[in-house]
């Protein structure tokens, strides 16, 4: 204890010293800072009195005013510009011209627990500026990253309010969490769809293991660091951003019309064994119902963001409000999100800064029925939406059977489900600088969320199959209560040719999730006020809950050392303890990393060369973990599920037993990754090229061990840490930015990521994991994950042709004319599951993007293209047949309908025999290229805007997903899915394009 007090007094003494420095005779210096290129004023430039923390910022017009000692030196800094020092020398006016640092070199990137100059980074970090996100007019911050960063693959979901799926450098896990860790201002999240994209100042994506490793046990899927907008010193700046737009469905699949459908169904019936009588006596039924036309609409979307920021020398603030209202393209579907954010920073005393960020978010969605898109696909065109008497068209009246027994309009009309999400999250921090080189920071963050899904089914009858004999109220509540405390101590020193930063830190986290589900029947509904379980039948009320609780405690340290700006060395270590693995030998894990860089252009021997304006070679290695593995997996637990409730004399009695094997002890998945990168600048850094090679191996990944059915367990497999998964690839990024004599400023940036994914060394051997679909793929499993192959490959029969005659099919039991003819792989004369082969790979090999910006006078244009290549999609919409689902027009036109008509498309009897089993016919190329975003803006001349008391007024037109090119025969090749169920297209939200008109105003 004595030692601590000693330290504190030393500390305090130094606090004191720093104060003394600031005391001298002051004068007021004023001036304006402008851009050396276009001579426009630069707002937000930081001006510091050298050797102190005292400073200010330029206001919106580039003007500043600072009180400084007459003999002081002012340091002007602005991101993207070369910093400048000006000795005051008793001058009271100092105007400064800052030269653009032709980016990159001086660019600062956010890394774990700090920032680094881009030139000092030894790992692979993708940085995206806030404006590039807000320019997308995207409703989700992550969706806006699509195509922006090499090696980051993003799959959008169309559902309003849905979160896109993000995969960084390939899939490295099968059973663990696949999403990255999001860190927003020091608070950790699994998802950031509560964030208003306009609140984001920048995003860093840590791609390689060495950069991730400071986040340890939860970093294996990559880390996305989000820094939110802070206020700047100066007068209040009011910003308004608004868009109004319309979303239009694109690339719809054309379905068969009523006549075609009836023809195909009759054909299918005639091909059954024994043949069934035609279902339709008359197939001349005209167009019938176009269900997509009936249920889909052009949907409205509007987004408004208002922010007020500013500050004094001692404090800054930023306050923002956001409102999003997005209609779904399917009737009744709507999502609204309200966000409010406040951040405040106070320079309490010179060495002490405190502040907080707080975000409140509320969203409410009127949900779309779960499988409505599948229902629209399979609905029969012969069924009218409504009968002449106003009742719903009933598929049963046409004897269509189970495959197509739904009137989607009735599904929509009687569906009533709302999801509300409330969240309050943020952090408070204190930052203390002492002993000149030390910074101590402590931050306490919290994340409190509540989600409520409320479904109400009224009592109704649309048909025998679509009815509810009773009303039902169903309430799901999910609560999250998370906190995180982080303490870091940084030592920063530059001397002679050396620069050194040392970081040490400690954190603790607690995450609690609690879910409760309750329902009751026969709840009346005269108003929303009736929707309480208490009003339902007492006997019908039920309630069940579950929870998850995990804690982490961690220590970490990092050293960054640079010599002569030429040789760079970074090394870090994190030690994580995770409650999830308590009781095993694996509570604690160590995650080291090391990285080195060589800035070759700073070498003497490079002085005279003219080719490279920058050349840097870097390499790194690190370890990370994935703690997002199934919860409490190592404990054998008692099964007391409702399925074990016994009935005696009509009364339920609790049952419980043990229905699992003693599981192997599970621990987190361990990843180790290496990255080698080359950064090159040419032509005075107008052209920048970055190339990365990476190799990441997840060691001891969780993999299935199938168990004998005769063990009678409830699951057919157990899991253990027993496989390695490898992702290897290249990334290329090239950016060209320039300014022409004529005043055109532009940048063109292209990126490509190439990834190869493979499972290695499964300890339990060749027992594959079969997954993928089942109920969505006619009851069959469509993927296989096995040693030495990519995760989740499509697996099924290889189509060799179509049997043209029964005579030709006679040799194959169970096959007949019009059926697919499959390759008999094992040559036993019978086609069964042993004849399956690999049909395709759902993991995209290439992801790429092309992002451009043009500015000419008052016009600006952004054009982003994005795509994936060398990927396969399983068209489960086509294959998933249990009966008389509708056919696509393409299938109808090309189907086999007699000898010689087709050797690739089967007959209309697609649900018969093995025709609907996974096979090569259903696996299609999923490559696409898309005009992701195009935006044309016009900034009104200052003369005009200032008349309206505005600093800036810009109007723009924006289109997202306006052009999509792909050969795939489904709605969208952008399918997504969990690792062993990826790329299976069924019920996918149809693609839509969004066209917006928007305004930016700054006061």
């Amino acid at each position, binding site marked *: 204890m004595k030692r601590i007090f000693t330290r504190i007094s030393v500390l305090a003494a130094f606090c004191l010293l720093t104060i003394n420095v600031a005391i001298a005779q002051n004068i007021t210096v004023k001036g304006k800072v402008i851009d050396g290129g276009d001579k426009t004023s630069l707002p937000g430039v930081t001006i510091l009195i050298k050797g102190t923390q005292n400073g200010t910022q330029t206001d919106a017009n580039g003007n500043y005013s600072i009180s400084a000692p007459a003999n002081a030196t002012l340091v002007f800094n602005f991101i993207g510009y070369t910093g400048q020092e000006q000795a005051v020398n008793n001058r009271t006016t100092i105007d400064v011209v800052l030269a653009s640092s032709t980016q990159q070199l001086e660019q600062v990137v956010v890394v774990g627990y700090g920032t680094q100059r881009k030139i000092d980074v030894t790992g692979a970090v993708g940085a995206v500026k806030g404006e590039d996100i807000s320019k997308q007019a995207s409703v989700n911050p992550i969706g806006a990253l699509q195509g922006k960063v090499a090696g980051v693959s993003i799959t959008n979901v169309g559902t309003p309010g849905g979160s896109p799926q993000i995969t960084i450098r390939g899939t490295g896990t099968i059973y663990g969490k696949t999403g990255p860790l999001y860190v927003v201002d020091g608070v950790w999240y699994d998802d950031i769809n509560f964030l208003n994209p306009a609140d984001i100042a920048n995003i860093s994506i840590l791609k390689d293991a060495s950069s991730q490793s400071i986040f340890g046990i939860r970093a294996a899927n990559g880390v996305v660091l989000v820094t939110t907008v802070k206020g700047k010193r100066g007068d209040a700046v009011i910003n308004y951003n608004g868009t109004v737009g319309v979303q239009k469905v694109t690339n719809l699949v054309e379905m068969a019309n009523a006549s075609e459908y009836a023809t195909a169904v009759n054909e299918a019936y005639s091909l059954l064994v024994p043949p069934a009588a035609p279902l339709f006596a008359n197939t001349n039924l005209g167009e019938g119902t176009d269900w997509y036309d009936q249920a889909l609409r052009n949907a409205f979307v509007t987004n408004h963001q208002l922010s007020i920021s500013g500050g004094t020398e001692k404090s800054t603030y930023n306050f923002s409000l956001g409102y999003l209202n997005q209609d779904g393209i399917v009737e009744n579907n709507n999502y609204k999100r309200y966000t409010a954010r406040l951040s405040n920073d106070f320079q309490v005393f010179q060495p002490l800064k405190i502040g907080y960020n707080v975000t409140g978010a509320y969203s409410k969605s009127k949900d779309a029925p779960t499988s409505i898109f599948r229902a629209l696909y399979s609905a029969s065109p012969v069924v009218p939406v409504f009968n002449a008497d106003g009742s719903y068209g009933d598929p049963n009246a046409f004897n269509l059977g189970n495959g197509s027994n739904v009137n989607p309009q009735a599904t929509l009309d009687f569906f009533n489900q709302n999801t509300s999400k409330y969240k309050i999250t943020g952090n408070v921090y204190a930052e203390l600088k002492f002993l000149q080189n030390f910074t101590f920071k402590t931050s306490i963050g919290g994340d409190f969320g509540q989600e409520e899904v409320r479904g109400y089914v009224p009592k109704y009858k649309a048909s025998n199959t679509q009815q509810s004999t009773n009303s039902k109220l169903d309430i799901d509540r999910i609560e999250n209560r998370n906190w995180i405390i982080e303490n870091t101590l940084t030592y920063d020193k530059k001397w002679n040719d050396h620069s050194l930063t040392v970081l040490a830190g400690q954190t603790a986290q607690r995450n609690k999730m609690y879910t409760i589900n309750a329902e009751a029947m026969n709840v009346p509904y005269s108003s929303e006020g009736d929707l309480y379980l208490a009003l339902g039948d007492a006997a019908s009320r039920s309630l069940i809950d579950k929870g998850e609780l995990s804690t982490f405690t961690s220590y970490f340290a990092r050293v960054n050392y640079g010599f002569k700006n030429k040789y760079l060395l970074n090394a870090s270590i994190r030690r994580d303890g995770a409650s999830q693995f308590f009781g095993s030998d694996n509570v604690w894990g160590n995650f080291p990393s090391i990285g080195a860089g060589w800035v070759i252009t700073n070498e003497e021997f490079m002085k005279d060369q003219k080719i490279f304006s920058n050349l840097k070679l870097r390499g790194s290695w690190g370890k990370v973990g994935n703690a997002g593995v199934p919860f409490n997996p190592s404990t054998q637990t008692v099964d007391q599920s409702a399925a074990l409730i016994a009935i005696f004399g009509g009364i339920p009695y609790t049952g419980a037993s043990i229905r699992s094997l*003693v599981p192997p002890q599970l621990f987190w998945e361990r990843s180790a990754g290496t990255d080698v990168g080359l950064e090159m600048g040419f032509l005075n850094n107008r052209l920048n090229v970055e190339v990365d090679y990476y190799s990441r191996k997840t060691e001891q990944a969780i993999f299935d061990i199938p168990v004998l059915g005769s063990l009678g367990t409830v699951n057919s497999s157990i899991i253990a840490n027993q496989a390695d998964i490898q992702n290897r690839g290249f990334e290329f990024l090239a950016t060209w930015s320039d300014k022409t004599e004529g005043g055109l400023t532009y940048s063109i940036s292209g990126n490509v990521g190439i990834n190869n994914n493979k499972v290695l060394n499964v300890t339990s051997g060749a027992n594959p994991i079969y997954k993928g679909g089942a109920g969505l793929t006619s009851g069959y499993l469509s993927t296989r994950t096995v040693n030495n192959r990519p995760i989740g490959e499509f697996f099924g029969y290889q189509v060799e042709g179509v049997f043209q005659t029964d005579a030709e099919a006679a040799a194959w039991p169970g096959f007949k004319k019009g059926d697919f003819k499959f390759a008999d792989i094992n040559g036993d004369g019978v086609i069964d*599951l042993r004849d399956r082969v690999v049909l395709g790979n759902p993991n995209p090999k290439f992801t790429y993007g092309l992002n451009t910006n043009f500015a000419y006078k008052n016009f600006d244009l952004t054009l982003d293209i994005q795509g994936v290549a060398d990927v396969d999609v399983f068209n489960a919409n086509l294959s998933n047949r249990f009966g008389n689902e509708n056919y696509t027009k393409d299938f109808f036109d090309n189907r086999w309908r007699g000898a010689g008509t087709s050797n690739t498309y089967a007959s209309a009897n697609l649900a018969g025999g093995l025709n609907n089993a996974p096979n090569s016919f259903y696996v299609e190329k999923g490559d696409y290229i898309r005009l992701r975003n195009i935006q044309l803006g016009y900034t009104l001349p200052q003369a005009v805007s200032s008349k309206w008391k505005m600093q800036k007024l810009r109007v723009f037109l924006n289109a997202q997903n306006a052009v999509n090119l792909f050969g795939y025969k489904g709605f969208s090749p952008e399918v997504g899915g969990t690792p062993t169920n990826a790329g299976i297209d069924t019920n996918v939200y149809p693609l839509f394009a969004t066209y917006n008109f928007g305004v930016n105003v700054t006061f």
Partner: protein
Amino acid sequence: MKKYINIQSYCAAAAFTAVLFMASCKKDFLNVPPQAQQPSVTFWKTPEDALKGVNAIYANLRSWDNVAFNAIAIESTGSDEADKGSTPTDATFFNLFDQFTVTSTQGSLQGFWTGQYQNINLANQVLDNVPNISMDAGLKARYLAEAKFIRAYSYFRLVRAYGNVVLRLNVPKDNSEYNLPQSDKAAVYAQIEKDLTEAASVLPPSYGAADLGRATKGAAVGLHAKVALYQKKWNDVLTYTNQVMGMGYDLFPDFEKGFRTQNENSIESVFEIQAELIPGNADASNSQYSQVQGVAGVMGWGFNTPSAVLASAFETGDPRRDATILFKGETTPQGDLVPISVPNDYYNQKSYVPFSTRVSGFNEGAQQNIRVLRFADILLMNAEAANELDNPTQALSSLNRVRARARGGNASILPNVTTTIKAELRSAIYQERRVELAMENDRYFDVIRQGRGAEVFGPKGWKANKNEVWPIPQTEIDLSGGLLKQNPGYN
């Protein structure tokens, strides 16, 4: 000066917070117990645990694998009494069983297999763990006997379906006991008989209302008779059936009404799988037995429909035809109109639950019990054994008792069988079994054990020396590393 103090205290406070926090981070922080899950080491301690464990065995008997598609595929589709049902293009995998083209990789083979072994595991859990619980000795003995009964029942279903199966009589202690070889069919039957004998010696003849549906002595002896029947142990069949016939069982007077929910666990019931629709608990109301066979689009999915062959198998005027088959367009005794616009001509009436009982959010007909063993079956087994043992008088007496009930007092139909010629009487008994037990998953294996598989099912593709059993699931063979051997004729 004041400023200095402030700063000093700030510095101190900050440093202090950090130090304090680090100190407070004890090891306890990481000690988080499993949430909402009971570790298995805390189970099998109390009499309540024993009861729950026994209850669980009964509950699993109504699982999907035990009563729905997979059971239908294995135990019914191959027969001549049932068709696939639903629309022609729906769930066409049933055709593989109907036409005997099924191969070892077909999923229902594994599903039915696993379903039975799940029952067996639940029984073994009780048999291994309950003996160590200190509790009432009588109750403990009964629990163990109940577990033995269900284990025997599950092995009986397995041995009929697959022949040589893995005989697993204990919960495996470790992974050295996971992979066991198949036992000879005879050894499996011997174990079944052992379990039933032991169960019968303990189980009570009946239960109070709160335990209605648990295995009784009659159930154990009755099932033993059926197991003996499949082994042609005629003396045993006769002994056991005679024993059951002395236990107070009788035929329920109205054949049709005997299958309605209000007459569950009737005087005719020897063993029934209990199911119920429990308001507020759809997960416990999980029997899909009635749903998968219910009138398509109205009360279920419409599979496992009675065949035209079955419809013509009844004697003229036999009321059991109408009670077994729901005809398209008919109005049921409960007043339901089966619409004319349904995809099939016939549906199973024995699994039928009136349409008005439907509650949305629950499986249609979740309340229907599955009649596993009825007294009528006991009588017919008694008749068959008596006839085989050259006692036509007793055979006729038992047989005609069944016919008399079916007749329902209408003297003009179903006259008593009078023949005493052994072969003729045997045929008459076979025929009676066919119509009395129709659509109760009895017919397929019944014909096979009678040795008439080729004769009856041959036209559908059934082949002797192969189709007596279905193939062992391929995955199971693969996972056993080849320890399990495939049945002859299947590869």
